[in-house]
């Protein structure tokens, strides 16, 4: 009885163990031919086959085809000889999905020492295998990236104290040092001395605080030649957040730096030349200003004497002089006054080239009305018809543009003086280069043969006795229009009148 109860106790223990095993593992039993004689619930669950579908089959039903024949043969050889086999197997479930099992196959031997049955105990390691595969793939990717990086960049790794622990081939090539010469050194070996201490200190402060540093560094190769590298240093931190190592990735920018230096040098040379030229121009301008200042003061004084003393002679000795003598003195006075007028006009003209333009939008119509009023409109002693067309606003210096209108309208009035009914048309036409203002008169006109002389200083196409003038008016007009970036031209027929046109650019590109 005691024997019985002992047997029952150990049976119970075995059952308990089996129950625990079934909870934990995938269990199958096969006969010596490999036919499945038992599967537990976990086997059914992972293989997605029912027990009925499995019993009597061999393991080919879940063969994934993943393992080579030698692998399967080795397994059978091992267990056929009564030895335990252990390994990892990929199987295929009923739905075609794959799973991995860590497998231990224990052969149980019969009385002749031949396997009686095999008990296979498996654990699902699909998740681990997937993770391993992923890790392998990403490791491969990292290695690929590293290979690509080595192809492309100059790479070095240093320890937290700055000692070089790794350099790639490109680092060796550009620095001209062998790897053995570099490892264990710090970067002072390639220091060019170009950068100030603060620069280097700034770099170390940045990376030792765990920040990425980026900048351009000038290094010196073994043969003393300098080279420039665009550098990114990335600190890698340990668990405590302190730099564990620094990886520096560099690109050779020596050629770019050379080009930049050449451009800078070129710019500096250009700026020097511009400064020199500007200084020369300023000097010339100052000289011109001093010249015209002294012309304005000194050239007029003798003319005042000529005019004043001629007048004094007429006043003091007029009665004693013959009529012809008085007339000649008057001629002297007229000539002196004319020269005064010439000097004044010339000074005004020369000032035009120097004074700066105060550009803004100008109401052309208002400007024209103002100029006409200044010229004495309406003229009670003459028959003058003024026709004003549409006059769009223009861009320019109002004072200078008014001078243009004064001169052109003044000319139109002057050269229509001998007409019984003077007609002056003012308007604007569209040309290919933009709007062109015009002043047309029915006056004396001129021969187009001489149009080239029209805008020259002191050039006149009419005799002094017919039409007074200094020959500066149209030269002034041309200079003002040209300084605005515009163009002025004229068309005329002798005795039929003349038309003067001028353009003003909408807005000069310099101001954009």
């Amino acid at each position, binding site marked *: 009885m005691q024997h019985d109860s002992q047997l029952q106790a150990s049976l119970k223990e075995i059952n308990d163990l089996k129950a625990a095993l079934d909870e934990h593992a995938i269990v199958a039993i096969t006969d010596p031919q490999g036919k499945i004689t038992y599967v537990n619930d976990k086997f059914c669950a992972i293989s997605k086959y029912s027990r009925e579908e499995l019993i009597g089959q061999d393991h080919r039903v879940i063969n994934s085809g993943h393992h080579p024949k030698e692998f399967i043969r080795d397994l059978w050889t091992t267990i056929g000889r009564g030895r335990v086999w252990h390994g990892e197997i990929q199987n295929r479930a009923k739905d075609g999905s794959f799973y991995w099992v860590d497998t231990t196959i224990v052969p149980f031997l019969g009385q002749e020492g031949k396997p009686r049955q095999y008990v296979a105990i498996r654990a699902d390691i699909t998740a681990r295998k997937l993770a391993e595969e992923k890790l392998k793939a990403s490791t491969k990717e990292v290695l690929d990236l590293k290979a690509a990086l080595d192809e492309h960049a100059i790479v070095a790794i240093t320890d937290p104290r700055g000692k070089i622990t790794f350099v790639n081939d490109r680092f060796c090539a550009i620095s001209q040092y062998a790897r053995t010469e570099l490892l264990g050194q710090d970067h002072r070996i390639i220091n060019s001395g170009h950068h100030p201490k603060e620069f280097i200190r700034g770099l170390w402060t940045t990376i030792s605080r765990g920040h990425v540093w980026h900048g351009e560094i000038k290094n010196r190769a073994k043969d003393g030649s300098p080279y420039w590298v665009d550098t990114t240093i990335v600190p890698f931190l340990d668990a405590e957040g302190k730099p564990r190592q620094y990886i520096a990735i560099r690109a050779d920018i020596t050629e770019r730096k050379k080009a930049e230096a050449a451009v800078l040098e070129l710019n500096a040379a250009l700026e020097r030349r511009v400064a020199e030229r500007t200084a020369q121009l300023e000097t010339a301008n100052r000289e011109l200003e001093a010249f015209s*200042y002294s012309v304005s*003061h*000194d050239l007029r*004084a003798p003319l005042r004497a000529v*005019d*004043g003393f001629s007048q004094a002679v007429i006043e003091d000795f007029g009665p004693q002089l013959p009529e012809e003598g008085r007339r000649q003195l008057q001629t002297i006075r007229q000539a*002196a006054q004319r*020269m*005064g007028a010439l000097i004044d006009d010339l000074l005004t003209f020369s000032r035009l080239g120097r004074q700066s333009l105060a550009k803004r939008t100008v109401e052309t119509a208002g400007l024209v009305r103002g100029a006409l009023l200044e010229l004495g409109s309406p003229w009670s002693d003459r028959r003058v018809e003024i026709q004003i067309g549409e006059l769009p606003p223009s861009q320019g210096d109002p004072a200078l543009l008014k001078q243009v209108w004064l001169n052109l309208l003044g000319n139109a009035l002057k050269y229509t003086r001998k007409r019984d009914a003077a007609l002056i048309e003012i308007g604007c036409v569209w040309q290919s280069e933009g709007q062109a203002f015009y002043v047309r008169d029915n006056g004396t006109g001129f021969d187009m043969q001489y149009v080239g002389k029209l805008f020259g200083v002191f050039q006149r196409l009419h005799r002094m006795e017919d039409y007074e003038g200094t020959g500066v008016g149209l030269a002034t007009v041309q200079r003002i229009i040209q300084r605005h970036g515009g163009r002025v031209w004229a068309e005329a027929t002798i005795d039929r009148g003349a038309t003067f046109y001028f353009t003003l650019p909408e807005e000069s590109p310099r101001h954009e």
Partner: protein
Amino acid sequence: MNDTPSIELLLVEDNPQDLELALRALRKANLANRIHVARDGAEALDFIFCEGAHAGRNFTDGPKVILLDLKLPKIDGLSVLRRLKQDPRTKVIPVVVLTSSKEQRDVIESYQMGVNSYIVKPVNFERFASAVHELGLYWLLLNQPPKVEE
């Protein structure tokens, strides 16, 4: 020492021809009484401030008005003007700048320094004479300058 009559007008002019014409114009305008002529800026300042050759002169004896050329030897007209307008004793004396210059910067500087009038000498003598005439009438006859105190 009061036997010298007080000076009404100081004419500062270096050009002898301009000077002769100016005096002629002033005479024709009946303004020729008690004119003193200075031929450069230094002489003008000596006269006004009773210094140097004019140390014996009485400061209160005028002038009532000063006609001042700008381009002058030694001390130029603008410097004379600055001295006059900076000194409380002389800043009330009317100064008329009389010059050939139409240069904007001269005109602007003169007015900034407190000039009372500015006349450009025209080439035409008659216009010059009439300008001097009106000027003399205005500053000597109509305008009553405040009393100069020493």
